[in-house]
């Protein structure tokens, strides 16, 4: 009996996962078998200072699994500023990413249209884009905090800045690459500029624009964790930082899992939307 490639891949995935869990568990057991601190590196022990004592702080996979389950079964509790459910923290992060992303979309797509349609603007704006694009969005954070003063708006601004470039560049690229003959068709039919933009250029460039959006949302999700670690208060990034201060490695690993899940879902959602606008030529 031969299984389909898909089935075999799924089986292999499960096997790899089980092997990973087993190695992890074994490593943790053999570590905690030693007498506490000796299992850690000297540096790590120093970092942990006085609080590091007794059993290994490194949890096993089952402890983490339990923790994840606990978070999942009560994701939205709110017990003060330093103790909120993981759902609430993720919600804050997602909301910030969403607002920053939408604002970036609202500027990048029209501006990208302009750049893509006008060789003049393309050349004029190109040096700025080339200069700004490689700057880490976190480099903007101090400037944002200084000028805006509000930490939430600052992190939204950072999300905005990091999402804007991929969308801008892809929109401009998609728009400038619209086949000349389609524009000629619109022209011979005396279609107005606005209708041409909506009915011809937008659908023609949509797959490229959506690819830009997909890149943007992935970067935004990477950046929000770091941004929230910096500004603190709420959000999954802050949660991770807070758990580091609490020395709850279990919660940090659980958070890594949730960050990965949300990132994957965001990407899947946009991939699905890209499919809707993709056309076969």
């Amino acid at each position, binding site marked *: 009996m031969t299984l389909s490639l898909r089935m075999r891949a799924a089986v292999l995935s499960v096997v790899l996962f089980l092997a990973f869990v087993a190695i992890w568990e074994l490593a943790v057991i053999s570590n905690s078998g030693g007498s506490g601190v000796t299992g850690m590196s000297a540096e790590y022990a120093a970092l942990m200072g006085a609080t590091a004592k007794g059993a290994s702080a490194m949890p096993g996979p089952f402890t983490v699994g339990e923790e994840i389950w606990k978070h999942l079964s009560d994701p939205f509790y709110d017990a003060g500023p330093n103790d909120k459910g993981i759902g609430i923290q993720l919600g804050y992060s997602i909301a910030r990413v969403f607002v920053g992303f939408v604002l970036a979309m609202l500027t990048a797509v029209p501006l990208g249209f302009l750049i893509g349609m006008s060789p003049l603007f393309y050349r004029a704006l190109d040096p700025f884009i080339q200069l700004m694009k490689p700057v880490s969005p976190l480099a903007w954070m101090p400037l944002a905090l200084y000028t805006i003063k509000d930490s939430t708006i600052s992190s939204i601004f950072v999300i905005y800045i990091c999402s804007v470039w991929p969308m801008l560049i892809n929109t401009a690229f998609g728009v400038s690459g619209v*086949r000349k*003959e*389609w524009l*000629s*068709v619109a*022209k*011979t*039919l*005396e*279609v107005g500029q606005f209708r041409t933009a909506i*009915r*011809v250029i937008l*659908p*023609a460039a*949509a797959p490229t624009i959506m690819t830009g959006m997909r890149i943007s949302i992935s970067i935004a999700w990477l950046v929000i964790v770091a941004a929230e670690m910096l500004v603190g208060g709420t959000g999954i990034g802050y949660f991770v930082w807070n758990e580091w201060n609490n020395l709850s490695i279990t919660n940090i690993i659980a958070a890594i899992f949730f960050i990965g899940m949300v990132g994957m879902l965001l990407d899947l959602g946009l991939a699905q939307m890209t499919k809707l*606008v993709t*056309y*076969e*030529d």
Partner: protein
Amino acid sequence: MSIDTQISVEDLKRTFPSPDGGEDVTVFEDIWFKVEKGEFVCLIGHSGCGKTTLLNILAGLDAPTSGGVIVDHEEVTGTSLDRAVVFQGHALMPWMSVMANIAFAVTSRHPDWSKENIQKHCQKYIDLVHLTGAENKKPSQLSGGMKQRVGIARAMAIEPKIMLLDEPFSALDALTRGSLQDELLSICYGTSQTVFMITHDIDEAMLLADKIVLMTNGPKAKVCEIVENTMPRDRTRANMHRHAHYYPIRNHLIEFLVNRSAQFEAELSSKDYDPRHPPVTRPGLTKPSAAVAQATDAPGGETETAVQALA
């Protein structure tokens, strides 16, 4: 300009900047010819002689370097819904269904029409090119010939005064091409549509055209002569070759494509050629012996049949 002239091409010249920065390349110059109302005119010339460039200027998509095109007593300065174009590639929007592609054109012509009205109008033209049942298919789901037919239906659906077709059947096999030619012919004759069509296929030109404009090779291409098709309009693909005029016209055109189109400069010097009035010939009416003579010693042979263009 006579009352019935629909398109008058006058002293047209188009240059492009040379790719290596040298002197501009003149694609064609001194182009003069006319298309009467209801006439079907084919333009024949070798690849690269500037046919598409000329058609784009007629459509208003491109501007001539000098000279101009007069359509219905007005100079062409831009595109118009009165001149529909069928492009060399089919140029359908791949994200729109067959119906939506045609409806896009019809809505442009009749922005005030209701949805049902537009739908009904589109359906009429979809049926006309025998695509009934394919309304909701996307272009990628159609064969090459079907795509070409959608392109033609889209152009016809706006009921233009003039149809401009750029090698609409070039990508097709002989069988499909034949049936599409028949369809086009019956539609155009039925509505006495003015058509200007580019082709490199001699038989296609002889079947479809009332007048065949011969363009010499570029650069600096010119109209070498205008051949009148003297076979009756009810000719068909099946019976055309039996007509007495068929072989004389065909030989004349082949002679042009094989020899004269490249040696036109030499031919020019041997006779008085006036680009304003390119010679009009009727090879179908020459005596068979003359036609043979003409085919063997090219230049000068047709002078007895050459008729000056009516000014």
